[in-house]
């Protein structure tokens, strides 16, 4: 009997309109758990290398895990995965909320979507069944309208809906997928993949309870966590993720003016505390989570904001705030709402617009190129206008919709220097020059610049800060600016830890060192749920399996060592803030990367995994794929 999972994967071919159900054996679940790892198990088997990411041959997977949907805080994420139209490599992005848990209640652990519908459709998944339905009447509509129409049409207000917006329909390369209008699979352009399949939404509803091996023990763990948790008035739950913007600015690490500086003079104005004092109307949460870090905001004219789309996270207040030198919180909240309406990743949009603003400032772009928009840094009106033009791919917006890498290529004239991306994925809002492991994380992450590869260095500067990660065998504190072999080892261990959390769909804010869930308790909880006699060893092996599978996926696509690089700007000194002058030394970076490859059991020069490593991880079946790279 399966505990924690359904044992059923839904397969949908939109070209042939065929729907089927696969029942993988228990060992598949135990080896790959879920999330990105289970997605890669299918992608590596079924997706042909060099497929067009926006063609019918791409495969889009929605994957929960053996743990998602449980009552403990944080077990609500699901992964969307496919070949990314931004990087042409492995694309994945996780979202919280309720959609993942609801999919499990509807009887499925994952959905594998192939092909392309001939006209717009949506998928209706409920109580062990699925059907493809016409969505012509929804095409072109804003996301809130679609959510309302679908709930009416299907006659149930509690239906959970993951969908794209008009930006995904228009194949904006950084279009996102949203559930409940505010929980977002933001990165990697997976909204464009869904749009290319003419799949507007997936509505799910189910009433199934997930079977748990030892309910008493599982509930006991949750109770303990709940009792020990303090809802600190100045912490994550009360002030949200955006509370860190002023801290990072004071510490010289808030991405500002396209990463030219780490200090933004209006940082206090866009932080979580100011949000609470001004536009916050309530706190939101995800399935089973008592931290409640999500925001609900409301603003009046001229930037009237509908609270249904939630409020901006830290990444958003930085990406369409400090990065563009915009300090108007209402305008940022409006930008967040527009991105939600149209289905655009706020991070990628911000980094793309910052690129355009710097190109404009340097005279590479003029108002002729921008259809008359005055793209100077700080112009929040222009920022709001650009969101709409990008979503509709209108005029200059059509160029920005390609993302910084492709837009820079089209513009030429040296614009590449201002395009801050790795493998095509626009940089997120964390500054590697102030926390060196992040330089490595950004460069080697299989999905391109990703800030969720590991918990960042400042946690681990003091002995007492290591207590949370002692179970991983990390015993020596290191300064944030250290970039030695010891830092690389710390990163390798922490990366496998986060790869595991990703595989079980756990929100990082609920796990140590951020949140209340100690590492060994997560293992204990996993044992109680699944009934497997498992251990931290086995779980971290899954993390490593993920890293190797994603690496092989990228190598098949021609992405390798040459792509594990940083944009030149990060090798240049920060121009302002208390870390002024700090940079990533190219030599140090090259050594760290070589050390990382070696520690991972990959060729230290080429970064290709050895067949021995793949065999050791029990994924010998992908060894033949290496010869095709």
């Amino acid at each position, binding site marked *: 009997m399966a505990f924690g999972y359904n044992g059923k994967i839904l397969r949908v071919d939109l070209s042939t309109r065929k729907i089927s159900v696969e029942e993988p054996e228990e060992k598949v679940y135990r080896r790959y758990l879920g999330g990105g790892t289970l997605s890669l198990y299918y992608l590596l088997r079924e997706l042909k290398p060099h497929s067009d990411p926006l063609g019918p041959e791409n495969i889009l997977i929605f994957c929960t895990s053996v743990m998602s949907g449980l009552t403990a805080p944080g077990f609500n994420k699901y992964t969307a995965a496919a070949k990314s139209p931004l990087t042409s490599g492995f694309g994945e992005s996780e979202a919280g909320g309720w959609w993942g848990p609801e999919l499990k209640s509807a009887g499925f652990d994952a959905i594998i979507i192939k092909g392309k519908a001939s006209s717009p459709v949506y998928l209706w998944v409920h109580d062990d069944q699925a059907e493809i339905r016409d969505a012509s009447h929804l095409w072109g509509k804003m996301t809130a309208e679609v959510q309302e129409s679908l709930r009416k049409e299907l006659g149930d207000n509690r239906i959970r809906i993951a969908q794209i917006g008009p930006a995904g329909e228009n194949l904006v390369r950084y279009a996102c997928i949203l559930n409940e209008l505010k929980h977002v699979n933001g990165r990697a352009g997976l909204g464009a993949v869904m749009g290319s399949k003419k799949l507007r939404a997936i509505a799910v509803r189910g009433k199934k309870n997930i079977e748990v091996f030892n309910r008493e023990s599982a509930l006991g763990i949750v109770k303990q966590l709940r009792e020990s948790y303090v809802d600190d008035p100045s912490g994550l739950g009360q002030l949200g*993720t955006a*509370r860190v913007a002023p801290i990072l600015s*004071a510490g010289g690490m808030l991405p500002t003016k396209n990463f030219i500086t780490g200090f933004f003079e209006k940082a206090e104005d866009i932080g979580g505390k100011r949000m609470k004092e001004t536009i916050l109307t309530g706190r939101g949460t995800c399935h089973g989570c008592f931290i409640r870090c999500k925001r609900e905001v409301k603003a009046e004219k001229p930037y009237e904001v509908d609270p249904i789309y939630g409020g901006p996270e830290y990444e958003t207040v930085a990406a369409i705030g400090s990065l563009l030198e915009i300090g108007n919180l209402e305008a940022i909240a409006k930008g967040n709402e527009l991105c939600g309406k149209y289905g655009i990743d706020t991070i990628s949009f911000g980094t793309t617009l910052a690129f355009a603003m710097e190109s404009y400032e340097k005279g590479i772009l003029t108002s002729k190129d921008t259809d008359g928009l005055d793209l100077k840094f700080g112009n929040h009106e222009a920022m709001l206008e650009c969101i709409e033009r990008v979503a509709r791919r209108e005029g200059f917006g059509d160029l920005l919709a390609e993302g910084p890498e492709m837009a820079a290529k089209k513009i030429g004239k040296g614009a590449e220097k201002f395009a801050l991306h790795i493998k095509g994925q626009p940089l997120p809002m964390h500054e590697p020059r102030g926390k060196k492991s992040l330089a490595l994380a950004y460069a080697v992450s299989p999905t391109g610049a990703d800030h969720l590869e590991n918990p960042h260095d*400042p946690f681990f500067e003091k002995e*007492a800060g290591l207590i949370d990660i002692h179970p991983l065998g990390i015993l020596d504190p290191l300064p944030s600016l250290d970039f030695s072999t010891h830092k690389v080892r710390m990163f390798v261990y922490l990366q496998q830890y986060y790869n595991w959390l990703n595989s079980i769909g756990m929100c990082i804010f609920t796990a140590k060192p951020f949140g209340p869930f100690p590492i060994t308790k997560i293992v204990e909880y996993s044992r109680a749920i699944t009934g497997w006699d498992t251990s931290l060893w086995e779980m971290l092996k899954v993390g490593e399996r993920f890293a190797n599978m994603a690496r092989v996926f990228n190598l098949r696509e021609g992405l390798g060592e040459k792509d594990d690089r940083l944009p030149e700007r990060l090798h240049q000194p920060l121009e302002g803030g208390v870390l002024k002058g700090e940079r990533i030394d190219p030599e140090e970076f090259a050594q760290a990367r070589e050390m990382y490859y070696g520690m991972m059991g990959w060729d230290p020069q080429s970064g290709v995994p050895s067949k021995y490593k793949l065999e050791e991880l029990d994924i010998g079946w992908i060894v033949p794929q290496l010869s095709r790279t």
Partner: protein
Amino acid sequence: MRVKVKVYVDLQRYNPDKGEEFTVEIKEGSRVKDLMQLLQLPEHRVMLILKNERIGKEEDLLVDGDAISFLPVVGGG
């Protein structure tokens, strides 16, 4: 002597009634670490110390009128 203190968000939990910015009376010859002890700020929760808007250290000597900020650890996400 008196020093001005600013404690950013998460670190306010150790002195909940003092708020974000306040002044502290501390004896001559004290160092930043003495101030941290006085305010019961655990060192591993402090990411950065700013002394008069520059990076400071726990060992730094305080003088009357210094402005000290404590930034909590933030680590991604």
